[in-house]
Every structure is written in C-alpha cells, then in structure tokens.
C-alpha cells in the first residue's frame, strides 16, 4: 500500500514537471494550435478535399504523441542530472519507479490532448461528444505505449543527449510520416509498397486518429474491434519500454552509471 503511495507521489511530481516546463508548453501549444487553426485551414483552401475536417482530429493525436515522447526527455534528464540516484534511494522498487514514469507520461499526454480536444470541439462540430469520453481510456493506454517508446530511447541513449534527441527525431518522423495523420490511406496506397501500407494501417497513431475522426467527429457508432486494435498496437510498446527502462535502472544500480 505504501509503495503505491510512493509510486503515485513520483508520478504526480513528474506529471507536474511536464506542465511547469514553460518552454515545452510554448513549443507544444504553438505547434499544435497553429497546425489546427492555420495549417489545416489554409490547406483546406488549396484542396478540393475538406482537409480541415480531416486534420483537426489528427492534431489531437499529434499532441498526445509529442507529450508522451517528452517522458523520454524527463527520464534522460533524470539519468544525466543524477536525480535517478535519489529516486532509487526512495522506499520504492525499481518496478514501481518504472510504473510511476509511464503513468505520469500517459497522464500528462492525456491531459494535454484533452485540452486540444476541447479546442477542436469548438472549431469543428462533433456529432458524438460522448464518444470522445469513451476513447479517453484507450488514448491513455496509447500514451503509455508511446511513453514506453520514449523510455526505451532514453535508456538506450543513456547520458548521450545528442543521441537521445536524434533517436527521438527519427522515431517521430517515422511514426508520423508512415501514418494516416497527415493524409488518407487512399493516397498512401497509390505511392507506398504493400508492406509499408500494412505498417501505416497498424500504426497506433493512424488507428487513434481514425477513431477520433469516425467516432467523435463523424458520429459513427463505436466498434469494439477497432478499440481492441488500438490496445493491441499500443500495449507492446508500453511493455518493451518498461523492460528497457527497468534494465537500464538495474544496470545503474549495479554499476552506479550507464
């Protein structure tokens, strides 16, 4: 019981650190809001297809993704600045520490994405707002999965900042360009080979963006099979991330460094 309390205390601390980082908030809000209110609107005027309706739900997922990936930066900072040594001295197991970071990453991303969703609901009429609430737990699992990817990158890069940010950049570009966040699958089918189209369709970002478009904004009835797909695409990332971070912490405990 006391371990759960410590886990929640560390998670709360990491969660508040995310929102207290002024420059990060400035970057995320300016990027996501300008994507939603400027880029989507201007592209709509350049296309025969309603890009605004297509892109606004995707911006929410992009925000969720960026906020989840920041978990990696916080883990990397904790490793570099030696905060991790203090955290390892707390009355908490290494498992508990890993869970705390993933919970905080997921929760921070979900809260941030929810604020974007609130803005999106003002600018784009939604046909089933209650569907958005139904999707939140699945978005939380997705955010934890993405935080897991970030944790893996931080563990692999250890204290080498330039490598961590380079890895993070590669993952961001790969996951976003190979998804249906920016363009519909029909366009991708004309251009990419079949193997990559499977990757695009199974990408958790594509699934989450599609769920928001269909269920919240278009008002289609929620399909449980589709939600299960989001879980299936997200949970493995969370597990791999948890194990990678756990392995890094164990190594840290034995050797005193990474």
């Amino acid at each position, binding site marked *: 019981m006391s371990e759960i309390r410590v886990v929640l205390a560390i998670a709360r601390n990491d969660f508040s650190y995310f929102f207290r980082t*002024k*420059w990060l*908030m*400035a*970057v995320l*809000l*300016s*990027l996501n809001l*300008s*994507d939603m209110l*400027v*880029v989507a*609107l*201007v*592209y709509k*005027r*350049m*296309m*025969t*297809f309603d*890009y605004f309706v297509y892109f606004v739900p995707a911006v929410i997922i992009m925000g969720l993704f960026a906020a989840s990936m920041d978990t990696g930066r916080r883990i990397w900072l904790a490793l570099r600045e030696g905060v991790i040594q203090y955290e390892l001295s707390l009355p908490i197991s290494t498992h508990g520490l890993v869970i705390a970071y993933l919970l905080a990453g997921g929760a921070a991303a979900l809260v941030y994405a929810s604020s974007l969703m609130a803005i999106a609901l003002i600018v784009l009429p939604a046909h089933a707002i209650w569907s958005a609430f139904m999707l939140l737990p699945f978005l939380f699992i997705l955010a934890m999965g993405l935080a897991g990817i970030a944790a893996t990158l931080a563990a692999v890069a250890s204290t080498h900042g*330039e*490598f961590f940010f*380079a890895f993070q*950049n*590669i993952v961001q*570009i*790969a996951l976003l*360009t*190979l998804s249906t966040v*920016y*363009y519909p699958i029909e*366009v*991708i089918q*004309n*251009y*990419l080979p079949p193997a990559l189209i499977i990757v695009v369709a199974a990408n958790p970002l594509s699934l989450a963006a599609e769920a928001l478009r269909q269920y919240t904004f278009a008002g289609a009835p929620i399909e449980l099979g589709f939600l299960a797909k989001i879980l299936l695409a997200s949970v493995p990332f969370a597990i791999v991330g948890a194990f990678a971070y756990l392995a890094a912490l164990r190594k840290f405990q034995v050797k005193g460094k990474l």
Partner: protein
Amino acid sequence: MRNVLRLVWFDLKQELKPPVWIIMEWAVFLVQVSVYGVMISQLVTGIDNYFQFYAVGLVIMITFDMASHTGRHFVEHAHEGRLPYLLSLPISRTKLFMSIALQGGAELALMLAVPLTVTLLIIGNLTWVSAVACVLALFFLGFGVAGLMLGLSFIAFKSSDLYTAIVTGLSTIIIRFSTVLYPFIFLPPQYASVALFSPLTYGSDLTRLILGFDPSFLMNPYYAVAVLTALSVSTLGLGLILIQRLVEGVKSA
C-alpha cells in the same frame, strides 16, 4: 582574421564530432520530401506542382532553424559560463560578433548542402546564375533571422526560461503565418495581414522567384529585397551594439 577563424573552428568542430545533427537534418529532409511532400502534393489542387513549392519551403525552414540556432547558441554560451571566457579573450567585440555570424554561416552552409542540392535537382532546368542567386538569398535571410534571434537573446539575461518560451513560440508563428508552406493568395485575409510581418514571407517568395516559380502568386521582389536588407542591417547592427555593451562576468539568468 586568424583569431576569428580559430574561434569559428573551435565551436564548429564540436558540432562535427560526430556530425549527428547535420546527418539527422539531411535524413529528415529526404524523408519529408520523398514521403510527406509527395503525398500532400497529391491532395493539393490549388497550384501546379506543389511538390516543388514544398521542397523550397523546407529549405527555407532549415535556413530559419539554423539562423535561430545561432541565437540560441549564444544564450547557451552565456548559460554555461562560456561567454565570460569568450569576452575575456584578447579580441575585439566586433571580431567576436563576426565569429558568431561566420559560425552561423558555416553551419547553415553545411546543413543546406544536401537539401538545397536535392531541391535544385527536383526543380531542374536551372542556370548557375539562378543557383548562386538562390544561395545568396538564403544567406541573406539567414543573417537577418540570426540577427533577430541574437537581438532577442538579450532577454535571456533576464530569464532564460522566458527567452526559450518566446523564441520557440515566435518561431512557430513566424513559419506558420508566412508563405513558407503555402502561397500568399491562399491565406485568409486575417492571416495574410500577419504574414506580411513575417520575414520568411519575403525570403521564401524571393527564393522562389529566383528559382523560376510563377510570379503571379509571389510577393513583389522589390519589397522582398528591401525588407530582407532592412532586417539584416538593423538586427545585425543591433546585435553588434548590444555585444559592445556586454560586460565581463555576464551570465544568463
């Protein structure tokens, strides 16, 4: 001049060992052009060959990023205590400023090497004169933006957090409210009036004009040259004045 070059190399060699960011930037550019650029240009019907338009836009964004990096780098020096060391060196402030500007120029040249070559190949059918003029326009824009960011970097002496928040927020707005990604005629009127204040509007339209894009949807080149000249001269001049007033021992807050 030898001292200036030595200072430039002193900082530059750290970026080259290993050149992670340069290779990263090239790889990101290639993926964005070959995947995102191709896909989105299939959706854009408002202008002919949006793919070429987008490729030039990406080159402008790299120029902007590198130019703002020059300002951030200066703040990092102050934050890490390296600026007082640089200020204590037996070189004049003007030379120090020149070394900062030259380092920015060298980094920009390195970063642009692959993206610009690929973009020129995509556009094709170019003369040496237009290629050289395009490089000059990009450097002109780069120095203007670097000067602006160096000017803003003095906010960091009050609060580095505030500086980072202002610069990152401003950078996004300058890019989005400009003609980097879309022609001016497609901007809604309320956005178009903001875009007129973005230096990237003039830099990107001037570069596109040099590269042979349809002038009917670009800004007047005379205005573009005038704005870019005014920006470069005024912001670099301001930076030069401010660096003269820096006293040894200054530290970022």
